[in-house]
């Protein structure tokens, strides 16, 4: 009922590399490659995505160390916290901070004392903006959204871990398992 996890192998996950055997594992010797014979690069990435997450890596290490064969991090609630965010966010096409960066700064034009763009014209008034001052409110809101996504923790720090794991997976899948 509340499954999706538990202390047993989840059904239907083929070709997960497990040192010492298991589905798709190679117990005959050490190899850097994790792509099984006949498996495409994309299939390899999909099959090993969980193994190359913080939770998956920790569980693999624990299973090797203790001689157990658990699948705790496949539980859905655990997976929300330990899953590889880079993979999921890459699919969603989002990144914290991108929202604010996309709006950019308001460009000034015309009249006096415009430091960023020429075409200074005589007349009263300050610096009209290509993006009206009302958009500063929008930028503020979007900035808050970006900050909320960062949530006091540098996104690069947290994403760096998942990015590193994703990179390792990409390299591993690039090398066929002999």
């Amino acid at each position: 009922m509340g499954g999706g996890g538990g202390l047993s192998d989840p059904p239907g996950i083929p070709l997960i590399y497990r040192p010492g055997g298991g589905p798709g594992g190679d117990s005959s010797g050490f190899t850097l490659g994790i792509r099984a014979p006949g498996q495409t690069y994309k299939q390899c990435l999909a099959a090993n995505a969980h193994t190359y997450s913080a939770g998956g890596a920790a569980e693999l290490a624990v299973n090797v160390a203790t001689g157990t064969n658990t699948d705790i991090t496949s539980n859905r609630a655990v997976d929300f916290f330990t899953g590889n965010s880079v993979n999921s966010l890459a699919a969603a096409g989002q990144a914290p901070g991108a929202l604010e960066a996309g709006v950019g700064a308001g460009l000034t034009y015309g009249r006096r004392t415009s430091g960023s763009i020429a075409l200074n014209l005589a007349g009263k008034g300050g610096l009209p903006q290509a993006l009206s001052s009302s958009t500063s409110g929008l930028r503020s809101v979007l900035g808050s959204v970006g900050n909320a996504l960062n949530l006091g923790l540098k996104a690069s720090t947290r994403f760096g871990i998942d990015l590193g794991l994703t990179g390792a997976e990409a390299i591993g899948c690039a090398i066929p398992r002999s």
Partner: protein
Amino acid sequence: MAKSETMVQVKSGFRIAGAWLLGFGWLCLVLAGMAVAFSPSKYPPVVGWLLLAVAAIILVTTAQRWVKALPGLLGLATLNALFSIFSGHATNLPSVPISRSESLVATLLLVVSTALSPSFTVRELRVVDRLAFLIYASCIFWGAVDHRVTLPVQMGIATFCLLSA
């Protein structure tokens, strides 16, 4: 001057990396404890419970340090849950399906948890706060050993603990 700034940044980088490695070590401790306590292994189950007790003590006693990372962790968990609404499966695990309603409820509860979490970072943590964190973590891992527990129940109790604190 520039050299000292560089050194400060290098030290800061090592400190951050070290903190994350310690977090990874704590996760390994919990997973090892659960593996030994709840599944057949070469160690007696009492060793697993001992490891879980050590992990719980570490979680409670060091809460003031790691609580700064809590909003970020919860925020990313929220994003993962949000993604599962559209994908229909767990993060990185297409073989573990999640119904839209379940993932929607989980996302909403995680949003509430995330919204609550910054308040913990700006104040001195009380015993109640630390116990709430312990119950929250227990609820997250609970479903992995008890298949009767549903995702909304797990997340609901966890969020209620943060709300109560």
